[in-house]
């Protein structure tokens, strides 16, 4: 059937006539009452069971801000120690802990989470949705972030914090005594997983939760950036998680991945870390550009110039930034030709970055600019970032980098890029969006004070550092002797740091001070054109009163009747007839309505699941493995209960009225459903992590003359072959189960599911037997083979749980021939698992015999 035939009976797009139809007064009042009660936020201590993105987004932002302030205080202590030569304010060991935690907390607990927090808060409103599609997942991610962040940060209070620098190079970090490195590895992996969860939520939100009619060419630029940054998180974090896994295996089980005496190679960590680390810089930077892209059209009072150009450069930067990582490794003795590639690629990425800035300048030039506080911060950002960019171009030239590597020149460069590319634009965003977040205005006077304090303090602190670095002062030294010409420069930097702190104090006070007596902000204080300014004042928790039909990029400017119609409930889903939370799911490209999605409401289960997941990561840092395993099982149980009770339940009515004469299904499986997309995206990240481990295998092969070492024992060939066959059989049976179930042959489907579980079990067992005789502590070759087998084994066990989950669903009526979303998602998981098992079996079974 073609698209056109299948659409003509639907009353979409809505006719002008249907839109003009008024809603009777009493019906409207009843709708408002029902919506309000469906979306009411829980009272009292139950407030903390909230899951909707406006609450969770607020907690997320405040927590990230708190972590940032903690990291800032650490920076102040660092600067105090360095204010004068031969200072003994703190010990060398404390100093190491402080700069490691300062860097790690700023990057992992502030920069990335802050983007996700702001996006979670903003995105539903920008897209005209009621909420994102997985509210409980956001809440789970938030609680993981809070638990992990508090755990990692508080280690410094007990003098056991990690102390090998924010990139934890082995062998320093592998051989470091005490739990410091483990706290870093496990605590931050835990947070990275939460970041991935948030990325999945945001990507699915942009793809599937846009207001009807909001085609890809109408999406607010911010949403494009969310898509790009989410995608980058998906490909950048997994290599780091894989690296963390190898690292932790070395620290706790003595598998020698980074130990050269047994064939390991510390360079592998550097590769994995920087494959993550460089894109991370752009993951931090692009959201700020996104904020700028929202502020600029508003202050210029016209649509953005060069929309396609900006989208292109965002996607282009996203890609190119993955080809730059070796520029952090210029001094590691790689062949000069290889260095050349990365040096050149580092220069190329400047082009798309520049295009975005020029598009913004062009918009400002052709518009009628009104100066406002957000614009002031953005101007500051531009000035600071340009300087950081210039030193960056200098550093990308390998010989220059040889000269200043590991000196204060780097510290100056990285803070110029981070302040210009992150701190200033985010504060601009806070000033701009605050009336949306809090329904009040921030003080322009305090804002100007904060700006000038932070701006001048920043330059006072970091500009001299360029010179300190050129004069030879290394970074990460806890003190220095006098007479080297560094004294005045360092003292200036310290004074500057405290001026920055004063600026932040003003800003945070303005942000958090009580506002009971302050009047409400105007609804659209900046006269912006995008949908978030259709918010309700005073605040309502339902997101939007009715979900609009969008036909332009700046609906509030270009669709004059839109706001009034939204408020009067003349668009989609103006009601909550079953008293449940719902939003519209639309198609990926053209945003045609496809589904009314039931959303989950307040619940404690995300918190419970997060606590146990936390235990599973935190206990091993103290060598307590049994409690960790117990927590892992409990976390798994909690997640199963959560999925079972709240997702993909067959609805009471198959179709419902969505308003404007449109009737939509209430259940979907496969690509129409949001769950399927979430699995797809998650598995993409998972596959990236697995590829990183395989990359490790081939890395050892290219980097060593003899890999596998001559005479090494291999994984048992027959057992590997059996494993491959059994796992493929299991996958085929899952596919078969889905087919037969669709064809109403429920009995056969159940039989296929049971057999597939048995096959999967056989496969996992065979794989375990294949590597059983190997000794992973002896050499890196058996170690990496065992890791690959372990990876597949764990995934197979997960896959078996999923198969049994579907079986249970089928037996209890949750999963029927028409309601088979779970089975669709499990099939998708198994598609990925089948591919990765084949790859794994080829690498451990065949490759070593060929190499």
């Amino acid at each position, binding site marked *: 059937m073609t698209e056109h035939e299948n659409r003509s009976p639907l009353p979409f797009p809505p006719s002008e006539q249907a839109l003009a139809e008024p809603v009777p007064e009493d019906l409207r009042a009843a709708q408002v009452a029902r919506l309000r009660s469906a979306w009411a936020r829980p009272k009292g201590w139950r407030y903390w069971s909230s899951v909707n993105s406006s609450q969770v987004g607020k907690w997320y932002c405040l927590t990230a801000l708190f972590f940032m302030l903690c990291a800032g205080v650490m920076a102040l202590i660092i600067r105090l120690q360095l204010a004068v030569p031969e200072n003994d304010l703190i010990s060398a060991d404390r100093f190491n802990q402080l700069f490691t935690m300062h860097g790690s907390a700023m990057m992992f607990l502030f920069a990335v989470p802050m983007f996700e927090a702001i996006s979670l808060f903003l995105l539903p409103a920008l897209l005209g949705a009621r909420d994102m599609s997985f509210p409980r997942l956001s809440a789970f991610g938030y609680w993981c972030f809070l638990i992990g962040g508090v755990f990692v940060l508080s280690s410094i209070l007990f003098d056991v914090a990690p102390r090998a620098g924010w990139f934890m190079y082995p062998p320093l970090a592998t051989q470091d005594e005490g739990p410091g490195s483990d706290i870093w590895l496990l605590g931050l992996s835990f947070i990275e997983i939460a970041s991935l969860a948030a990325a999945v939520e945001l990507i699915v939100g942009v793809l599937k939760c846009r207001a009807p009619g909001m085609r890809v*060419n109408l999406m607010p630029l911010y949403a494009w950036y969310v898509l790009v940054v989410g995608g980058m998180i998906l490909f950048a974090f997994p290599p780091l998680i894989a690296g963390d896994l190898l690292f932790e295996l070395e620290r706790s089980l003595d598998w020698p991945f980074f130990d050269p005496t047994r064939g390991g190679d510390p360079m592998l960590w550097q590769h994995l870390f920087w494959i993550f680390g460089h894109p991370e810089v752009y993951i931090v930077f692009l959201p700020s550009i996104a904020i700028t892209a929202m502020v600029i059209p508003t202050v210029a009072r016209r649509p953005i110039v060069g929309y396609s150009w900006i989208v292109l450069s965002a996607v282009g930067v996203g*890609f190119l930034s993955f080809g730059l990582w070796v520029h952090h490794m210029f001094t590691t003795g790689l062949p000069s*030709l290889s260095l050349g*590639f990365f*040096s050149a690629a580092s220069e190329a990425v400047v082009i798309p970055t520049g295009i975005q800035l020029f598009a913004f300048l062009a918009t400002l030039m052709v518009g009628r600019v009104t100066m406002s506080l957000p614009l002031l911060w953005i101007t500051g950002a531009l000035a600071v970032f340009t300087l950081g960019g210039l030193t960056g171009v200098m550093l990308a030239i390998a010989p220059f980098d040889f000269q200043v590597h590991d000196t204060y020149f780097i510290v100056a460069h990285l803070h110029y890029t981070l302040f210009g590319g992150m701190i200033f634009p985010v504060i601009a965003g806070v000033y701009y969006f605050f009336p949306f977040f809090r329904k009040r205005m921030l003080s322009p006077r305090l804002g100007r004070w904060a700006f000038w304090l932070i701006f001048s303090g920043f330059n006072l602190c970091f500009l001299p550092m360029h010179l300190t670095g050129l004069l030879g002062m290394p970074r990460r030294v806890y003190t220095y002797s006098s007479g080297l010409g560094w004294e005045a420069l360092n003292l200036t930097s310290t004074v500057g740091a405290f001026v920055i702190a004063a600026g932040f104090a003003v800003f945070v006070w303005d942000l958090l001070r009580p506002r009971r007596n302050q009047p409400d902000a105007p609804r659209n204080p900046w006269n912006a054109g995008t949908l978030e300014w259709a918010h309700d004042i005073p605040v309502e928790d339902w997101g939007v009163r009715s979900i609009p039909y969008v036909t332009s990029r700046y609906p509030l400017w270009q669709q004059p009747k839109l706001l009034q119609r939204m408020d009067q409930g003349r668009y989609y889903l103006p009601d909550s007839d079953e008293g449940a939370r719902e939003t519209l799911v639309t198609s990926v490209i*053209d945003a045609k309505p496809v589904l009314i999605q039931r959303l989950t409401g307040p619940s404690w289960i995300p918190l419970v699941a997060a606590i146990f997941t936390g235990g599973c990561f935190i206990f091993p840092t103290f060598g307590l493995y049994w409690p960790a395993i117990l927590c892992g099982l409990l976390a798994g149980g909690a997640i199963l209960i959560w999925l079972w009770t709240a997702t993909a339940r067959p609805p009471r009515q198959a179709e419902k009225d969505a308003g404007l004469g449109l009737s939509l299904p209430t259940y979907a499986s496969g690509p129409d459903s949001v769950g399927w997309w979430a699995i797809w995206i998650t598995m993409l990240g998972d596959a990236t992590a697995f590829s990183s481990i395989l990359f490790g295998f081939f890395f050892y092969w290219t980097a060593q003359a003899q890999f596998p070492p001559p005479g090494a024992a291999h994984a048992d060939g027959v057992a590997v072959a059996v494993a491959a066959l059994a796992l493929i059989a299991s996958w085929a049976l899952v596919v078969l189960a889905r087919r037969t179930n669709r064809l109403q042959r429920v009995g056969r489907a159940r039989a296929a599911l049971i057999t597939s579980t048995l096959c999967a079990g056989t496969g996992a067992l065979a794989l375990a037997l294949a590597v059983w005789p190997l000794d992973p502590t002896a050499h890196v070759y058996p170690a990496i083979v065992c890791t690959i087998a372990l990876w597949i084994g764990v995934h197979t066990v997960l896959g078996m749980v999923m198969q049994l989950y579907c079986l249970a669903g089928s037996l209890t009526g949750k999963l029927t021939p028409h309601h088979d979303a779970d089975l669709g998602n499990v099939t998708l998981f198994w598609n990925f698992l089948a591919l990765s098992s084949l790859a794994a079996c080829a690498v451990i079974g065949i490759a070593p015999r060929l190499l």
Partner: protein
Amino acid sequence: MTQEPHPHSDKHEFRAEALSLWRITFAPATWALHFVLCYALVSLSCIHGTPPVAITRSALILATLAALAVIALLGWRSYRHWAPGRTGRLTHPYGTPEHRHHFLGHAAFLLAIISAIGVVFVALPLLVIGGCQ
């Protein structure tokens, strides 16, 4: 405000469009492949000595030409898809299937250009640096 699309354009466009979000990424993906190939082959040559650097260099220069050809092809196709000459439009701000269609073409075209620049930049060291040193 609510333009019903042309019944005919819609039919064939939907099929073209189902893939177009992906197609946007093809040119950068070519860049990525080229990049990985350069990096992997040079590492092999410089550490294992097989294949010899001179051969790797020439092979990679050929690969660069091939990558550029692929990107040029993709760029040409997306240019036709964008069709600024035919429609006379350089921007696509409206909520119609035509605008969405041309927008995706435009973005893909621009990305092809960026990818080509990326490939050229990555290949420059092949021309100016002789060996492993």
